[in-house]
């Protein structure tokens, strides 16, 4: 973990309000793990004071670059989306633990479940799992067809199921409906998406095999300020920091 001025080398608008940015960055030398995130200084203090945490979508070690995908939510992501190729941003990373790829063995089955803007961090995860020789299955959930993105990219890698809440693409309903229908055996489930999706997965999946990526408002992003803390079942005062011990936790590890 350190900071690096990183140069935007590519920028794409995937769908309305969802932007993909690739950055040439020395941070790539530090070995970024899938599921880790970076903390981005958007610019002028005053407009945005704090950094913005965004997950890593893809890593290109050879080209010394990595890619992020984000949705324009508020001021920070809007300003980031307005930056152009050639501009520099200061990035702190890589941060957090990432998905536990070290636990996965060749031939094991890993289901990657993503909802909406939680989908991007699963892409590098899937690529590396495939390289490890795992069977990877993607289940991606969107609100509606026009909200969907990255489906092709995931499909090219591994078997991909899609659900939309309104049924306009793939199976109608939620990712959990897909899971119930295909009723697969699995060794691990890695998931990233909105809180209700994570909760729903906890209810139907084997919690000893389920790893969930959490979000929390952050200040430092490195574990020093205690902004992003979750309680654990261990005691009233035991905690995990989403930015340090997380963002990925075993189901039930934090409450």
């Amino acid at each position, binding site marked *: 973990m350190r900071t690096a001025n990183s140069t935007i080398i590519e920028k794409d608008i995937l769908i309305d309000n969802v932007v993909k940015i690739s950055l040439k960055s020395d941070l790539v030398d530090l070995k970024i793990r899938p599921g880790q995130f970076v903390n981005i200084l958007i610019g002028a*203090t*005053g407009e945005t*004071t*704090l950094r913005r945490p965004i997950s890593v979508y893809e890593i290109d070690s050879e080209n010394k670059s990595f890619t992020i995908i984000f949705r324009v939510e508020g001021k920070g992501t809007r300003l980031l989306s307005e930056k152009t190729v050639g501009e520099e941003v200061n990035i702190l990373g890589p941060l957090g633990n990432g998905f536990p790829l070290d636990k996965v063995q060749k031939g094991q089955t890993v289901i990657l479940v993503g909802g909406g803007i939680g989908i991007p961090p699963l892409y590098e995860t899937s690529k590396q799992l495939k390289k490890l020789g795992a069977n990877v299955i993607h289940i991606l959930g969107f609100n509606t067809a026009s909200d969907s993105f990255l489906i092709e990219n995931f499909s090219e890698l591994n078997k991909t199921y899609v659900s939309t809440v309104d049924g306009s693409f793939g199976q109608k309903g939620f990712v959990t409906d897909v899971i119930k229908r295909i009723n697969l055996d699995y060794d691990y489930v890695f998931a990233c998406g909105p809180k209700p999706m994570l909760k729903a997965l906890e209810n139907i999946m084997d919690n000893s095999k389920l790893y969930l990526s959490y979000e*929390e408002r952050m200040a430092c*992003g490195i574990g*020093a300020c205690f*902004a992003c*803390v979750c309680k654990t079942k261990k005691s009233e*005062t035991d905690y995990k920091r989403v930015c340090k011990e997380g963002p990925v936790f075993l189901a039930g590890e934090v409450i």
Partner: protein
Amino acid sequence: MLQVNIPGLNLKNPIIPASGCFGFGREFGELYDLNLLGAIMIKATTLEARFGNYTPRVAETASGMLNAIGLQNPGLKKVIEEELEYLSNFTTPIIANVAGFSVEEYVEVAKVLSESPRVSALELNISCPNVKHGGIAFGTDARTAASLTEKVKKVSQVPVYVKLSPNVTNIVEIAEAIESAGADGLTMINTLLGMRLDLRTRRPILANGTGGLSGPAIKPVAIRMIYDVSQKVKIPIIGMGGIQSSEDVVEFLLAGASAVAVGTANFIDPYVCPKIIEELPSVLTKYGFKSIDECIGGSWKHGF
């Protein structure tokens, strides 16, 4: 050139990370050598472990942020056994931030922390705005603040600095009372009480409702208070509130601070403290100063 000596603290430079913005140093220790720092103000310690407030605990504001961590810490015992133990790997002086919910708790935490060979001074936090009882309640009334200071001074083995709240009508009066009660120094300012609402949920963004405002937004308030207080007390002041650059440091010294603490800026640039330490000599020179001492109180002392 950067050397400053104040009670209990021989600082090789006047730059100190502020309490609560630097944990117990471990994370920043991964980024740079903590021995570069003038001193370290560690996170507030209470008698027992505390989880603190629910999340969200932080919210962004114009040129600042709100926090309502709620004094999360592993409790006195673990701070001594684990955190101060880790910090023994460094020679930088440690200033331990003491919090509590009763006079007795403050006294007990202060006593035990001050006995640690790793602690050079105490910072008595009577200004935390983020807990329902204790904290700020001790810092907004001159008599209460003075009486607590006196009791802590009695048990402390090291010099005691008292951290002032800016959320008061007359900060000079409180500072004078604390000086009379025997404090060795003051640290100021803690955060201003603030709030932000989420238009979508129609509720405060912070789970705690209110939070403490920090960052560049509050710098003018900090400068004004230090300017006023430093002319009325003889004990040294460690100044803080919105410091981001060497220029800001010089402004605080000119206002009357003897050293400074950097809080929120650590979140924006984790290397901000060593960066300031590196740049400070040339900035001092640029404005015609030969030493830190020459700066201190320069805005109101004669001969400038």
